[in-house]
């Protein structure tokens, strides 16, 4: 599915609905089964960010910063919700007129015209809007891991608000809202480009612009509580069924297959990372198997509506092994401090998934078929590559400019004393653990 069942025609229906409600109701049949599943899926995706991702990240930082990352995830959840209601949803999914290939319009700002009676596909538009909102929440929250333990909270809020507006909303529109990438026939079922490559490349840029944490990489910075991390990773795994199977926007066979391939790829990636580490470092680690699972979830995200079980297995293995090397070797080789491996897991996993989707979507390989206008695997791979490169370039460049501007205006980084003391006390006057 390239446009999340919300093509321009649907927007036109929305206008028709306002003019002639009786006619619109006859055309848009609300399905209670689809609606029930999508309300559930929406809750599952929110559950991924709070508490899933919050715990996953909180366990990996040092104890003096445990609250700061949870605070960042929680505040992003609230901020993205309000911005999505104000204009984000409209920019992403409303028809943008002559600018429609690039960005949506403001016709649904403040959810104007979104009422109890408006329908999107077979579900209430309120449900569609809120489901998409949970994606707009988790994507910026993912970035938090890259600049953990050193960014000013105020700068983080400014950055995330602006980033959601000029990076996330347009990119979401490009792929799902009727924009140009959707027209290219790109296959991105649940957000390999929009969510993961987008967050991953922004994370890398942020890690480089902010600079390394004081003492990195010579000082030991072990995770303060891997129990929290494993609990968080497990919640992410469960919540991801809402993310992937929910992206079908219906309770049907494609959603069922998305559910199955999500489970298969995740398990394969967890094992892939575990065995890679076992072989190269002699011991299988808990942090490793949990991170491998996340890498698999990321990689199957763009593929989940298009590939079959065998494709999922191979995508999972590729993600587990590939992200292991990206997070352990490549990061060390280049020396950037992507603290919690947002790039190594989300960008690398997203790219692996986005490209392999172009192969395993083929019906001959057990997939559901290639995207519109792409007759062969080579053509589909080309479309996938365009999507990957466009995301990397647009998100990377705009994020870089945003961060540089914010750095010169308000400063991005806490001072050295605050960093040494820990952000919990320095920025929030609180401690995570009073033992």
């Amino acid at each position, binding site marked *: 599915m390239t446009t999340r069942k919300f093509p321009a025609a649907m927007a036109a229906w929305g206008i028709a609905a306002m003019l002639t409600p009786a006619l619109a109701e006859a055309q848009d049949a609300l399905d209670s089964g689809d609606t029930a599943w999508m309300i559930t899926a929406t809750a599952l995706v929110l559950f991924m960010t709070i508490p899933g991702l919050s715990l996953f990240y909180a366990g990996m930082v040092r104890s003096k910063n445990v609250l700061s990352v949870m605070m960042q995830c929680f505040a992003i959840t609230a901020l993205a919700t309000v911005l999505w209601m104000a204009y984000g949803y409209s920019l992403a999914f409303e028809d943008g007129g002559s600018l429609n290939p690039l960005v949506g319009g403001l016709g649904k700002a403040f959810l104007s015209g979104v009422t109890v009676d408006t329908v999107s596909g077979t579900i209430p538009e309120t449900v569609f809007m809120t489901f998409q909102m949970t994606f707009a929440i988790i994507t910026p929250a993912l970035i938090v891991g890259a600049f953990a333990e050193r960014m000013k909270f105020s700068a983080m809020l400014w950055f995330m608000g602006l980033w959601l507006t000029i990076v996330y909303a347009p990119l979401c529109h490009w792929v799902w809202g009727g924009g140009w990438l959707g027209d290219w026939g790109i296959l991105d079922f649940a957000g390999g480009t929009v969510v993961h490559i987008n967050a991953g490349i922004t994370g890398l840029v942020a890690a480089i612009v902010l600079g390394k944490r004081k003492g990195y990489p010579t000082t*030991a910075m072990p995770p303060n509580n891997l129990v929290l991390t494993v609990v968080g990773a497990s919640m992410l795994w469960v919540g991801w069924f809402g993310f992937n199977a929910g992206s079908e926007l219906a309770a049907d066979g494609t959603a069922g297959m998305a559910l199955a391939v999500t489970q298969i790829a995740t398990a394969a990636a967890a094992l892939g990372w575990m065995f890679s580490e076992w072989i190269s470092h002699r011991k299988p680690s808990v942090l490793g198997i949990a991170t491998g699972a996340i890498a698999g979830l990321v990689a199957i995200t763009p593929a989940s509506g298009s590939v079959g079980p065998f494709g999922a297995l191979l995508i999972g293995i590729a993600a587990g092994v590939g992200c292991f090397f990206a997070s352990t070797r490549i990061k060390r080789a280049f020396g950037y401090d992507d603290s919690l491996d947002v790039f190594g897991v989300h960008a690398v996993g997203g790219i692996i998934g986005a490209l392999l989707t172009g192969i395993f979507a083929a019906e001959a390989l057990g997939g559901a078929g290639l995207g519109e206008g792409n007759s062969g695997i080579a053509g589909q791979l080309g479309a996938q590559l365009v999507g990957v490169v466009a995301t990397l370039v647009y998100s990377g460049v705009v994020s870089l400019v945003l961060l540089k501007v914010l750095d010169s205006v308000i400063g991005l980084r806490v001072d050295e004393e605050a960093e040494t003391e820990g952000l919990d006390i320095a920025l929030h006057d609180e401690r995570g653990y009073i033992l």
Partner: protein
Amino acid sequence: MKIVTAIIKPFKLDDVREALAEVGVQGMTVTEVKGFGRQKGHTELYRGAEYVVDFVPKVKIEIAIDSALLDQVIEAVTKAARTEKIGDGKIFVHDLDQAVRIRTGETNSDAL
């Protein structure tokens, strides 16, 4: 009177306590400590980042006893704490000049 200080592996604490009770030791003080000897530390690995942990967790037991009990105490601790692997710990013996039981005012042997 003697003070016996034993540094042992944490998981051997219960065995040592039982062995000491059997030879008649009436009380002890236990502290969780860190340190290193020939065992050195260990390494931890998180997503490819390797950290050397120099100090290994141990348990320190302090026992105040009559000098007559010293050999039995040393034997009990040695037997109970031994795994024959590196890092089993050490026993130090010091002289003890005076002891007072705070509740009653009893002194020396009566106070142990």
